[in-house]
């Protein structure tokens, strides 16, 4: 028997799907269905992405002018980049892949009905909303200008009224993230159906698992740190206050103990998506499954040991600096293991250059640049020069935006037909991806130049920097121009995706030829995901996947698929 049964889209008109399962606003707001919760997260995250993006454009537009401008004061500028950073980190990138795409895909890929704790899952979403509400309230209460890093003593001294509300917001968002992590770990450990062994689990789930471990172990430290900061602002005394015997550098240790691992909360799920995209769209078995799987775990472990590399200029002891520098280099190993395995997967694959794959290839390019430019920042001698310059800004944008966010958008295109049952315009998808890629590199590659020539980050004006103002102005102009091109790419993406919801071609169950379980249920999936527990084969074995003209999609011959796995063609 193949999946060509009663539940395939052509066989039965309008089969049960999660979007039409129940109707009305309340059926969404009170839903316990992981798919609907994922979609709500997706809408919320994309809305925040829009706001954070507008802030970025404001910042970039200001920087077209070296000196003061009438339409944006230095204080407003500080608030704009702070807001951009805080929104993009806490409201967009951290929840984007795990909470939005992960929520939707994880139980289906696993062959489960839902996550382990559906109520906790919904609760996480409402915590996210509450955290976002705090952030909005902080703007009404006077805004905040601390940078997303909230460094003391500035954050305890600044007079703006929005600092406490946004810290409360970050605290709540932290717990939203923790509960998602707990849910995913338990789901993967305890709810795998028979036959779904650890080594048959798709690499995206391995990545989400490693991410969840970091979420659970690191985020409480952020929670208590911002809580102590709030107490310190309220009572004017605290352990970060040097006038009372406290230690402001302790804040930096606490903050980076979370925020360095948080970088991997952002990038690991992205790497997971890339493993799926590269393999499915080159129709070739992923190369080095176990290496990719275990490198995720290795990255999760290393992530806890390197936070001090953000503090080379903070007066840490030289021995600590050397140790943190050395351990930081070692993160390159598991990261490179992944990149080489992806490249080996592409080699001799029959690559479909459709939109998800274009984003996947963009990721490989941008992540490599992002990773390699981390080296001069991990080297003590060069970091002294590059610390707090645009070089750092460029580096972490290549990793957080060029890699994590690009992977998220690639994943969104990869699973869009599954999520909403429609195909988007491939033509416009490719064009938008091209614009984003070109715009991104224009924006941020120039910032490597700016930084290495000494342009400090977070500066409102640069006309006073002797001898460099003209050169900096040119780079800033290219950078801002690039950001507009990128914005155009995202606007086009928004338009064709929305358009597809109303006028898109109906998606087959398996438009790309994937072999993991989510491609075996209809698009969009039914409320219960699977009418009976699916049979689990090797999710990267494409030998039993064939094109079906009638469905205009691929079908997986489950019989042959599970058999070929047993014959040892899989792992």
């Amino acid at each position, binding site marked *: 028997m193949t999946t060509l049964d009663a539940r395939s889209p052509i066989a039965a008109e309008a089969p049960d799907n999660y979007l039409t399962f129940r109707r009305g606003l309340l059926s969404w707001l009170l839903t316990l269905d992981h798919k609907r919760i994922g979609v709500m997260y997706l809408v919320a995250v994309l809305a925040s992405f829009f706001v954070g993006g507008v802030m970025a454009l404001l910042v970039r537009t200001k920087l077209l002018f070296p000196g003061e401008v009438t339409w944006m004061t230095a204080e407003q500028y500080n608030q704009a980049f702070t807001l951009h950073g805080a929104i993009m980190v806490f409201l967009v990138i951290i929840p984007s892949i795990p909470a939005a795409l992960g929520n939707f895909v994880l139980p289906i890929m696993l*062959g*489960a*009905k*839902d996550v*382990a*704790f559906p109520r*906790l899952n919904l609760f996480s979403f409402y915590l996210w909303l509450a955290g976002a509400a705090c952030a909005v309230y902080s703007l009404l209460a006077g805004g905040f200008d601390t940078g997303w890093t909230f460094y003391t003593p500035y954050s305890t001294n600044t007079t703006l009224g929005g600092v406490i509300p946004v810290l409360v917001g970050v605290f709540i968002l932290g717990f939203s993230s*923790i509960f998602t992590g*707990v*849910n995913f*770990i*338990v*789901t993967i*450990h*305890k*709810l*795998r*159906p028979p036959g779904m062994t650890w080594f048959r689990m798709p690499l995206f789930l391995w990545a989400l698992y490693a991410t969840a471990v970091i979420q*659970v*172990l690191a*985020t*409480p*430290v952020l*929670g*208590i*740190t911002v809580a*102590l900061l709030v*107490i310190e602002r309220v*009572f*004017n*005394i*605290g*352990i970060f206050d040097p006038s*009372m*015997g*406290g*230690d402001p550098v*302790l804040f930096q240790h*606490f903050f980076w*103990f979370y925020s360095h691992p948080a970088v991997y909360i952002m990038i690991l799920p992205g790497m997971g998506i890339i493993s799926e995209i590269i393999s499915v769209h080159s129709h070739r078995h992923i190369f080095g499954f176990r290496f990719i799987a275990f490198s995720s775990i290795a990255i999760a472990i290393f992530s806890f040991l390197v936070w001090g590399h953000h503090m080379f200029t903070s007066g840490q002891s030289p021995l600590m600096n050397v140790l943190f520098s050395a351990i930081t280099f070692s993160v390159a190993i598991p990261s490179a293991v992944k990149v080489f395995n992806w490249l080996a997967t592409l080699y001799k694959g029959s690559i479909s250059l459709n939109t998800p794959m274009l984003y996947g290839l963009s990721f490989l390019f941008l992540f490599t640049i992002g990773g390699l430019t981390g080296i001069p920042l991990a080297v003590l001698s060069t970091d002294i020069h590059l610390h707090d310059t645009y070089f750092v800004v460029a580096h972490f944008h290549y990793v957080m935006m060029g890699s994590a966010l690009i992977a998220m958008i690639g994943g969104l295109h990869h699973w869009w037909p599954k999520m909403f049952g429609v195909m988007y315009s491939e033509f416009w998808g490719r064009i938008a991806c091209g614009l984003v890629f070109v715009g991104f590199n224009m924006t941020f590659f120039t910032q490597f130049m700016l930084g290495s020539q000494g342009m400090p980050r977070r500066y409102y004006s640069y006309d006073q920097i002797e001898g460099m103002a003209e050169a900096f102005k040119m780079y800033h102009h290219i950078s801002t121009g690039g950001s507009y091109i990128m914005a155009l790419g995202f606007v086009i993406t928004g338009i064709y995706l929305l358009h597809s919801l109303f006028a898109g071609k109906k998606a087959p169950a398996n438009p790309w030829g994937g072999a993991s379980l989510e491609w075996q249920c209809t698009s969009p999936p039914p409320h219960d995901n699977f009418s*009976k*527990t699916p049979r689990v084969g090797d999710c990267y074995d494409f030998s039993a996947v064939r094109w079906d003209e009638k469905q205009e999609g691929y079908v997986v011959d489950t019989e042959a698929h599970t058999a070929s796995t047993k014959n040892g063609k899989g792992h």
Partner: protein
Amino acid sequence: MKQPETPFDDPAARFEAGRFGMWLFLLVLAVLFVATILGYLVVRIDNAATFVPEDAPPPPSLLLVSTVALLFSSVTMQRALAAGRRGDPRQGGLMVATVILALVFLGVQAVAWVELVEQNLLITDNLYAWSFYVLTGLHAAHVVGGLPPMLVTCWRAMHARYGPENHRGIAYTAMYWHFLDGVWLVLYATLWLGSLR
């Protein structure tokens, strides 16, 4: 009975998953408390000579009373869980005792705070006072947060709802309660040692 097809439909597997989730949640809280204690230790050790002011009162001896109350509440909680597992109706009385002991703990903590304030030790005075109020307050907040589930469990136990087939709720409550008990012992020891000049 029909064999459940997936772990998701199997009550025993769901209970297993719930307990595992609870362990993870306790791990989260443990990290939170450990970070707080580490932060305290850093400033305490940085200021070894000056941290405790000459005239500062030591931690109130009332805390011994609250500690005993909390320890006993763990005992009654555990016995309530055992009774719940058997479906023994004594689960109700034992849960009521646990709730009362929890309230006694919170009450004594509050009195201890008042006592310190009356001795003119305010949170804004110095880091010694600050750390006492913040650490005990952080723990008390977790006890207060545990009260709603505790009351629900108590109400259900009073109606003898728990039995061999169904004792998930009381089991989770017990896990959380023992955890808070352990955290308190560590915190109390830390504060007491830290108050030594």
